[in-house]
C-alpha cells in the first residue's frame, strides 16, 4: 500500500511569517488571537500577583502607592479589554462560528484580519504605557481625576483602548453578518448551536456599546489635550455624565464578558451529559434577552454617585429584570444533567465550576442591585469579589473549558487528561480561597483600590494572597501540558468527545483550510445526542485526498 497522502490542514498550509501575518483564514486568525491574549493574560496576571503580594501587609511594604495604583489600573485595563472581552469571541468565536454554521470562512475575512491588527496596535499602546510608567486612573477613568488631575499616561492608555474598540466592532460586524448570511443549507436559526447564539448576542452588544466607549474616551482625550471641560465641573461640565456614558458601555460590556462563556458551557454540558440541552429555545432567547436588557441597567454602578434617588430605583428594578435570563440559563444547564450520561472529563469539570461560581457571582450581583445594601458595599472588596467570581470564576473557567474542549479540534492532539483534571481542581480551590475572603472583607468595609488598610483586615488578605498563588499554579499547569501535547500528544481524530455539531462531525482535526471539503448539509437539530454522530461522507474523504494531492503537487 502507498503511504497515506499527507493530510493538508489549516496549520500546515504554509509556514512562513507571511502565511500567518497575512492570513485571512479565520482559524489562523483565531490562533493569532490566542497567542496575543495569552500574553496579555500573563501580563495582567503578573499585576494581579503584584497586587496580592502588596496586600499581604496593611502598609506599603513592597511598592509605593503610586506603583500600586498603576498596578491595579493596568491589571483591570489589560484583563478587561485585552484579555476577557476578546477571549472567547475572538479565539473560539473566530474559530468556531464559521464552522458551526457550516461556512468556509467569516463573511469578511480581511476585516477579521484587520481586527487582529487593530487589536495588536491597541495592545502595543498599552504595553508602551506599561513600559513608560503606567496609568493610575483605575479601569473606569473617572473624571475629573482622569481628565485633569492624574499625572500618568491617560491619553496613551485611552488611545490604546479606543483603538482596540474598533477591533471589537469589526469582530461584532463579522459575527452578525456571518450568522445571518453564511449558514449552510439546513442550518436554520433554531438549529444553531447555542454557542453561536451566545456569540451573536455578544456581537450585538459589541456593535452597539463599543462606539459609546470610543466617543467617551475621545472626549477624555480632548479634555486632556485642550483643557476643555466636557466632564470637568470647574468648567461647567458634569462628571456624572461621564459615568453615564462610561457605564452605558461598561455594563453591557460585562455581558460581553459572560455571554460567550455561557455559550461554551451550553456546548460542554450537552456534550458531556450526552444529552440535548434542556430548553434550547429558552437558553437561546435568554442570550438575546441579556443582550437587550443589559443596556438598561448601567445606573446601578452609580447608586451613591450623586444620581437621583428616582434614577436609583429605576436602575435597581431593571437590574433585577436582567438577572432573570441568567437564572433561566443556570436552571436549564442543571436540568440538562438530569437523565444524562455524564462524563466528568476536564472540560466538564470547568463547566460545572462555571455554573457554581457564576451562580455565586451572579447572586452577589443581586446584593449589589439591592439599593440599601449597595450603599454599604459599593467600592469595597465586596464588589471586587463579585466581579472576580463572575469574570474569573465564570468566564475564565469557561475559557479554560473551551480551550480543553476544542484543543483537539484546533491542534489535532489530545492533552494528558489526569494532569488536566488536577489543574482544574487546583484552579477551583485556589480561586475560592482567593476571592471568598474578599466578600467578608467587603462587608466589613475595606475599600477597594487601597494599598493601606486597617490591620484588622490583614488575616483575610493573607488568605486571599495565599489563594492567588495556588490559582497562579493552577493556571501555569495548562500552559505546560498543552505545549507538551503539541509535540507528544496522541492523535485526536475528528471527534474525540463523540460530540455533535458540524465542526466535529464534518471536519477533520485540525480542519482543512476551507473547513469542509464540501459544504455540509445540516439535517438535524443541534445537540442530537440521541442519534449517532454523523460520519463524514465518503465523497468528503475523497475530496480531501484529492486536495491533498493537488497541494502536494503544487509544493513540489
Amino acid at each position, binding site marked *: 500500500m502507498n503511504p497515506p497522502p499527507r493530510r493538508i490542514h489549516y496549520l500546515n498550509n504554509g509556514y512562513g511569517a507571511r502565511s500567518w501575518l497575512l492570513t485571512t483564514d479565520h482559524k489562523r486568525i483565531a490562533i493569532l488571537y490566542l497567542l496575543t491574549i495569552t500574553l496579555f493574560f500573563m501580563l495582567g496576571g503578573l499585576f494581579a500577583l503584584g497586587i496580592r503580594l502588596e496586600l499581604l501587609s496593611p502598609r506599603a511594604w513592597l511598592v509605593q502607592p503610586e506603583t500600586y*495604583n498603576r498596578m491595579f489600573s493596568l491589571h483591570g485595563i489589560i484583563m478587561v479589554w485585552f484579555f476577557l472581552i476578546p477571549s472567547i469571541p475572538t479565539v473560539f468565536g473566530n474559530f468556531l462560528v464559521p464552522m458551526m454554521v457550516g461556512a468556509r470562512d467569516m463573511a469578511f475575512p480581511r476585516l477579521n484580519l484587520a481586527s487582529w491588527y487593530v487589536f495588536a496596535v491597541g495592545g502595543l499602546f498599552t504595553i508602551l504605557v506599561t513600559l513608560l510608567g503606567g496609568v493610575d486612573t483605575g479601569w473606569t477613568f473617572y473624571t*475629573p481625576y482622569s481628565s485633569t488631575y492624574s499625572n500618568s499616561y491617560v491619553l496613551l492608555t485611552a488611545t490604546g483602548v479606543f483603538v482596540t474598540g474598533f477591533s471589537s466592532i469589526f469582530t461584532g460586524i463579522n459575527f452578525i453578518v456571518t450568522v445571518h448570511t453564511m449558514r449552510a443549507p439546513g442550518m436554520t436559526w433554531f438549529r444553531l448551536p447555542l454557542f453561536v447564539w451566545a456569540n451573536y448576542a455578544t456581537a450585538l452588544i459589541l456593535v452597539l456599546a463599543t462606539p459609546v466607549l470610543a466617543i467617551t474616551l475621545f472626549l477624555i482625550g480632548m479634555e486632556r489635550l485642550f483643557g476643555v471641560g466636557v466632564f470637568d*465641573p470647574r468648567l461647567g461640565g458634569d462628571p456624572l455624565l461621564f459615568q453615564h456614558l462610561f457605564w452605558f458601555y461598561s455594563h453591557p460590556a460585562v455581558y460581553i464578558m459572560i455571554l460567550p462563556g455561557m455559550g461554551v458551557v451550553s456546548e460542554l454540558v450537552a456534550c458531556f451529559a450526552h444529552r440535548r440541552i434542556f430548553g434550547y429555545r429558552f437558553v437561546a432567547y435568554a442570550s438575546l434577552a441579556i443582550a437587550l436588557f443589559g443596556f438598561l441597567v448601567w445606573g446601578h454602578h452609580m447608586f451613591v454617585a450623586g444620581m437621583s434617588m428616582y434614577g436609583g430605583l429605576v436602575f*435597581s428594578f431593571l437590574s433585577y429584570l436582567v438577572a432573570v435570563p441568567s437564572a433561566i440559563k443556570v436552571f436549564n444547564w442543571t436540568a440538562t444533567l438530569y437523565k444524562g450520561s*455524564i462524563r466528568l472529563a476536564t472540560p466538564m469539570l470547568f463547566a460545572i465550576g462555571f455554573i457554581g461560581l457564576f*451562580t455565586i457571582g451572579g447572586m452577589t450581583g443581586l446584593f449589589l442591585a439591592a*439599593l440599601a445594601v449597595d450603599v454599604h458595599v459599593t*467600592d*469595597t472588596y465586596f464588589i471586587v469579589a463579585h466581579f472576580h467570581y463572575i469574570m474569573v470564576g465564570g468566564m475564565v473557567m469557561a475559557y479554560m473549558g473551551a480551550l480543553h474542549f476544542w484543543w483537539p479540534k484546533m491542534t489535532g492532539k489530545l492533552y494528558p487528561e489526569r494532569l488536566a483534571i488536577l489543574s482544574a481542581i487546583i484552579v477551583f480551590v485556589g480561586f475560592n480561597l482567593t476571592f471568598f475572603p474578599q466578600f467578608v472583607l467587603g462587608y466589613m468595609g475595606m475599600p477597594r483600590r487601597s494599598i493601606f488598610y486597617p490591620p484588622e483586615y490583614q488575616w483575610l488578605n493573607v488568605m486571599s494572597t495565599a489563594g492567588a498563588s495556588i490559582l497562579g499554579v493552577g493556571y501555569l499547569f495548562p500552559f505546560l501540558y498543552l505545549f507538551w501535547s503539541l509535540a507528544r500528544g496522541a492523535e485526536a481524530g475528528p471527534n474525540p468527545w463523540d460530540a455533535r455539531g458540524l465542526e466535529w462531525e464534518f471536519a477533520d482535526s485540525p480542519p482543512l483550510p476551507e473547513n469542509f471539503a464540501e459544504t455540509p448539509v445540516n439535517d438535524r437539530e443541534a445537540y442530537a445526542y440521541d442519534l449517532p454522530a454523523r460520519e463524514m461522507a465518503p465523497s468528503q474523504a475523497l475530496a480531501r485526498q484529492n486536495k491533498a494531492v493537488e497541494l502536494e503537487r503544487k509544493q513540489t
Partner: protein
Amino acid sequence: MNGKRHSTIAATALLLGNDAWAAAADRGIQFFPEQASSVARQVDYLFFFLVFICTIVGVGIALALIYFSIRYHHTRAADRGPIRINTLKIEIAWSVIPLAIFMVIFVWAGWLYFHLQQMPTTTALQIYGIGQQWMWTFQHPGGVREINDLHVPIGRDVKMILTSEDVIHSFYIPDFRVKQDVLPDRYTYVWFKATKLGAFHLFCAEYCGTYHSGMRGMVYVMQPDEYQRWLAGREPAGGLAEKGRRLFSQLGCASCHVAGAGVRAPLLQNLYGRQVRLDDGRTITADDPYIRDSILLPQKDVVAGYPPVMPTFRGIVKEDETLALIEYIKTLREAAEGAPR
C-alpha cells in the same frame, strides 16, 4: 509618632502614623462590621435575608449538580429516557419564581434606600465635610474644624453636607452602613444617627489618586454633653459665621448687598429657607446649593426684578470660604435696616 517605624516614605508615615491606627489595632480579628448606627441593623437584616435566600438557591444548585453527576454518571445504569415533564411549565416556573423573589428584594431594598435618602430636618446637627486630595475637613456648626477625624454625639441625627475641592471622593463609615460620593462643585448629603459609643473607621471610598487609601480617619461617637465639652474645648477664634462675616466685607459683597448701595442688589436678611422668585418665572427655595450657586454661578438663578450684574466668585472663594459665607448668610435673621450687623 510610630509612623517612621512602618514606612520609609515620610508622606505615608504622616498619613498613617496617627491615633487611628492604634485605635484600630486593638480590634482584633473580626468577621463582621459593628452595628453602630440606627440604619445598620436594618441594612444587615436585608443582607441576612439575601444571604439566606442565596444560600438556599446556591446550595440547591450545587447539590443538584453533584447528585446528577453521580446518579447519571456514564458508568452507572440509570433511566436515560425522555423527560416527561411539561417543559414550558417548568421554564415559566423558574423564571417567575426567581422574579418574584427578586421583586421582594427590590421593594425591601428600595424602601430602605428611600429611608436613607430622606434627610432629617431641622433638629439634625449639620456638619460640613470637604474632601480634597487626600484629607477630610469637617466643620461643626460653631466653626470648630477638624481634619480627618469626626466627632459626633450619640443618638442625634447628623446631616453631613459634603463637597469636594478637587476630584470625586466618597464619604464612607462602614460601621454606620452609610456612604455618599462627594463631588466637586456640588453638594451631596448623607445622614446617620450613631447608636454606639466608640471609634469607627471613616474611609474615602472613591478612588481619588495616589493616597486615596490614606484619606481616612476615625469617627468618634460621644455622649452629647461630652461632645459639647469637646466643642467648647476647641472653640476657634471666631465661628464659621464670623469668618463669613469677615469675608463678606473683604470680598466686597457688602458694597452691593446693603440698603442704599450704588448697585441695586437684594438684601440677604431672612433669605435662608425663603422662597425666591426668579426672573424666568421659577420659584426656588433658598437652600445651601442655591446660595452657593448665587455666589459661584450668579447668572444661573437671577432674582426677579434685579439686573444680572453680580460677578461670579468662582475661583476666587474656596469651598470652605463658600461654606463660611453661606453660614453667615444663614445668621442674617433679623429684618435689619442697614448693613448687616
